[in-house]
C-alpha cells in the first residue's frame, strides 16, 4: 500500500513539474532578452576571436608535431621488401562490417570489391611485378570497440603495411587513432564522419566524402526543390548523429526548418516514429522532405513502414531514401512500395563510367563476382576497390614500405592533373603535411579527396534497375529533364 501511495505521489509531483514547465514568458522580460542577446553577440565575437587564435596555434603546433611518424611499440609490419619473407607477400588490412549491428550488405559488397582489387593487382605478379598482395579482413560489426580491436589486431598480429577499408564511421573514428598510434597508413573508404580527417593525422587519408560535404549537398537539393521543412531520420551512431546535425545546420542556413529523429541501428518497428513524423508533417505548410540517414537493412524497415504509415512520396513530400536504395534488387524486395523515392548516390553512376577503362573493368568483374548482371557496384564497393588500388600504387610509387614514404607518395597526387586514376575518378589530396589546410578551409579537408560525386536519383517504376533511375540533381548531371518526378507521373525524358 505504501508503495502505491509513494508512486502516486511521484506521479502527481511529476505532472505538476511538467505542467509548470511551459509557462509563457512574461512580456516585461522581452526587452531584457533583447539586450542580453546583443551582449551575447559581442561577447561571442570576442570569445570566437580568442578561440580562433588558440585553435590556430594548436593546429600549427599539431601540424609541425605530427609530420614525423613515431610508431608505438607492437607494430610488426616489414619496413623493407627484404623483410617480406620467401613469398614476398605484402599484407593490407581491410576492416569491414560483416555482422550485425553493422551493415552486412555494405561489408559484403566491400569484401567482394577488395577481392577483385587483389586479383587485379596480383595478376601482374603483384606490386612492382613481384610482390603479391594479401588482404586480411576483420569484421568490425560497425562498432567502435571492434573497430579499435580490429585495427590493433591487424597492425600488431597480422603485421599489415596499411589499412584500407571500413564502412562505418563509428568504427573508423577509432581505427584512425590506432593507425596514428602505430604509424600505419590508413585509407578510409566509406567513413563520412568529419573527425576522420579533421584530426589531421599524417597517416590518415579518405576517399569518401566528409559528412559536411554530403550535408551541404542534401541541403542544397532540398533548397532547390523549394522544400520548407525536413524530417531527418538518422541512426544513433558516430555517422548518423554528426551527419544529421551538419545537415540541420546547413538547412537552417538556407532557411529550411528541420527536425532530427534518431533511431538505433537494428530497429525493426518504426510505426510510432512514423506516426510522429506524419503528425509533424501534417502541421507544416509548403513542401516537406524526409531524409533517411540510417544505413543497411534498418533503413529498409523505416522506408517501407513510412509508406504504409502515410509518409509516401508525394508532390509536396520529397522522400530521400538511404543510399543503399541504389542496390535495386535488395531495395525492391525489402521496400516494394518505395516507388518515387529519391536517393542520394555518392560516387559515380553508369553514365559517368563509360570513358573510364578502370571502372569498366571493375564493374564487369563485380557483376561476375555477385552473379548479378544487373548489379552496378555500389559507391562503397567502388571506394573499397579504389582504396586498395591506391595503397598498392603508393607502394609502387614510393618503392618502399615505410609509412613516411607511403604518405609522401600519396601526397604527391596533389591535383586533378597529377592524380591517380581510380574506378571512381581521379584521386588527389590538396592538403597534407607539406601543404597545411588553409584557415578558410574546414579542417577535414586534410588528406581528403575533394571531388566525390554526390548525385540524387529517383525511381519512377516499381522494380526499376538503378541504371534506369533518373538523375535529378545536380542540374548538370540531370538525365530525365526534371528536378523531381511527381508520383504517379513519368519523367519528360526517359533515360
Amino acid at each position, binding site marked *: 500500500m505504501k508503495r502505491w501511495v509513494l508512486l502516486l505521489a511521484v506521479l502527481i509531483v511529476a505532472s505538476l513539474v511538467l505542467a509548470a514547465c511551459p509557462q509563457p514568458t512574461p512580456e516585461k522580460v522581452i526587452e531584457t532578452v533583447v539586450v542580453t542577446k546583443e551582449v551575447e553577440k559581442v561577447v561571442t565575437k570576442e570569445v570566437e576571436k580568442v578561440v580562433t587564435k588558440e585553435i590556430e596555434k594548436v593546429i600549427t603546433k599539431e601540424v609541425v608535431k605530427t609530420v614525423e611518424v613515431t610508431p608505438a611499440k607492437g607494430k610488426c609490419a616489414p619496413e623493407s621488401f627484404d623483410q617480406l619473407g620467401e613469398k614476398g607477400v605484402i599484407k593490407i588490412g581491410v576492416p569491414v562490417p560483416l555482422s*550485425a549491428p553493422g551493415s552486412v550488405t555494405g*561489408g559484403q559488397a566491400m569484401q567482394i570489391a577488395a577481392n577483385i582489387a587483389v586479383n587485379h593487382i596480383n595478376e601482374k605478379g603483384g606490386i612492382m611485378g613481384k610482390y603479391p598482395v594479401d588482404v586480411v579482413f576483420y569484421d568490425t560489426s560497425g562498432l567502435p570497440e571492434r573497430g579499435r580491436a580490429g585495427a590493433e589486431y591487424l597492425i600488431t598480429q597480422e603485421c599489415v603495411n596499411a589499412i584500407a577499408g571500413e564502412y562505418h564511421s563509428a568504427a573508423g573514428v577509432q581505427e584512425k587513432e590506432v593507425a596514428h598510434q602505430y604509424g600505419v597508413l590508413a585509407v578510409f573508404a566509406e567513413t563520412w564522419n568529419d573527425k576522420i580527417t579533421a584530426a589531421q593525422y599524417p597517416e590518415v587519408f579518405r576517399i569518401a566524402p566528409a559528412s559536411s560535404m554530403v550535408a551541404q549537398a542534401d541541403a542544397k537539393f532540398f533548397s532547390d526543390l523549394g522544400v520548407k521543412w525536413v524530417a531527418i531520420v538518422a541512426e544513433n551512431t558516430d555517422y548518423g548523429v554528426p551527419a544529421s546535425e551538419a545537415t540541420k545546420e546547413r538547412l537552417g542556413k538556407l532557411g529550411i526548418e528541420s527536425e532530427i529523429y*534518431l533511431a*538505433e541501428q537494428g530497429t525493426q*518497428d518504426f*510505426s*510510432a516514429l512514423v506516426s510522429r513524423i506524419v503528425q*509533424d508533417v501534417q502541421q507544416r505548410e509548403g513542401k516537406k522532405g524526409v531524409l533517411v540517414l540510417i544505413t543497411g537493412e534498418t533503413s529498409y524497415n523505416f522506408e517501407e513502414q513510412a509508406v*504504409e504509415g502515410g509518409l509516401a512520396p508525394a508532390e509536396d513530400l520529397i522522400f530521400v531514401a538511404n543510399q543503399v536504395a541504389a542496390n535495386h534488387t*535488395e531495395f525492391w524486395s525489402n521496400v516494394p512500395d518505395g516507388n518515387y523515392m529519391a536517393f542520394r548516390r555518392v560516387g559515380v553512376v553508369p553514365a559517368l563510367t563509360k570513358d573510364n577503362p578502370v571502372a569498366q573493368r571493375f564493374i564487369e568483374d563485380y557483376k561476375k563476382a555477385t552473379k548479378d548482371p544487373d548489379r552496378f557496384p555500389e559507391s562503397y564497393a567502388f571506394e573499397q576497390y579504389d582504396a586498395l588500388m591506391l595503397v598498392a600504387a603508393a607502394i609502387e610509387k614510393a618503392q618502399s614500405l615505410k609509412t613516411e614514404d607511403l604518405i609522401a607518395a600519396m601526397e604527391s597526387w596533389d591535383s586533378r592533373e597529377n592524380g591517380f586514376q581510380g574506378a571512381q575518378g581521379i584521386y588527389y589530396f590538396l592538403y597534407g603535411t607539406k601543404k597545411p589546410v588553409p584557415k578558410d578551409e574546414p579542417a577535414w579537408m586534410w588528406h581528403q579527396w575533394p571531388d566525390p560525386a554526390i548525385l540524387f536519383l529517383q525511381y519512377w517504376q516499381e522494380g526499376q534497375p538503378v541504371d534506369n533511375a533518373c538523375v535529378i540533381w545536380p542540374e548538370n548531371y540531370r538525365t530525365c529533364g526534371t528536378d523531381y518526378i511527381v508520383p504517379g507521373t513519368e519523367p519528360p525524358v526517359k533515360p
Partner: protein
Amino acid sequence: MWPLPDVLLHAMHFHMWLDALFKFQITGTYIVRLILEGLLIGVIYALMALGLTLIFSVLNIVSFAHGEFYMIGGYVVYAILHHYKGFPGLLAIVVAALVTFVIGAVFERLFLQPMAKGQVERPSEYAILITFGLSFFLQFVMLGIMGPFPKKAPRFWSFPKIDLGFIRTTKTTLFLGNIPLSGGRIFAAIIALLALAAVLWFMYRTWTGWALQAVSQDRNAAAVVGINPLNMNTLAFGMGAMLAGLAGAVLVTVFSWVPWVGVPASAKSFVIIVLGGMGSIPGSLVGGLILGVVESLGTGLFPDPARAQAYRDVFGLVIFALVLWLKPTGLFGRKL
C-alpha cells in the same frame, strides 16, 4: 474524426502543456493511432512470450534460443514463397509452425532430456549454456544458408480498393478515419490472435493441456496420476518453439529479415514474461499488450523527438522495473 479523445484532452487541459512540450499539436486521433499500433505489435509480442512462458512453466528453464525459432519461422515462409510462386501464404505459415515445432521437439529430446532425467550434474547452468549454444548454432546455420542480406517475403495479400468514407484502403494500408494501419500488421495480428485462442483452448479445454498444466504445477504428482513428464517437456518445448516460429512467420512480410533478427525479439519476450509473471499464460498476454502500447506511446509522446525512437526499449524497461518494484512476482505471477 475521433471527437471523444479530443474532448477528453481539452477537458483535462492537457492540450495547453502538451502543445508547449512538443513541437506539434497532440490530438486525440494521434493518441488513438499510437495505441492501435501498440496493440497490433503487442499481440505478436504476446504470442512470442507465450511460447517462452510455456517452456519456462513446464521445463523450468529459460530458452535463450527463443528468438532464433522466431527467425527460422520467418525464413521458412520466405523460402517457400520465394521459391514457389503462388504458394498459399497461410499454408506457408503452417509449414513454418511445423518446422519450428519439430526442431524444438528434437532439440529437447536430444539435449534437454538428459537434464530432466538427472543425468546432468549442474542442470541450471547446463540449460543456459545449451540454449545459448543452440541460439548461436541456429544463427550461423541460417547465415550460411540464407546469407547476410536482408530478405522480405511478399505480402500475403493486398487490400482491394475500398472507400466507405470512414474506412478506406490502399494496396498496403487500411485507413480508419485518418489513422493508417499497415495491412501486413493487421494480418499478422489476426493470425496471432487465432494462434493465441487455439493455444488457450488447447491448454484449458483438452486433456493434454491439463497434463501440461499439471506438470508445470507439480511434476511428481502429475507422474503419479499417469502423466509422463518427459513427454510433456518435449511437447512444451516444441510448442514454445512453434509459437515463436509463428510470430516470425507472420512478421516476415512486415520486417526485413536477417539471421540475427531474433535477438531483440527474444529480449522483449524475457521482459514480457517477467512483467506478466513467470509462467503465467494470462500474464504473457497482458504483458505483451502492455509492452506494445507503452513502447508506442513512449515513442510518440516523448518530448525530445531526437531521442524518442532511440529510447523505445527504455520505455518498456521502465514499466518492467516499476512492476518488479511494486509487485516482484509480476502482474499475474504466483505468490511466493
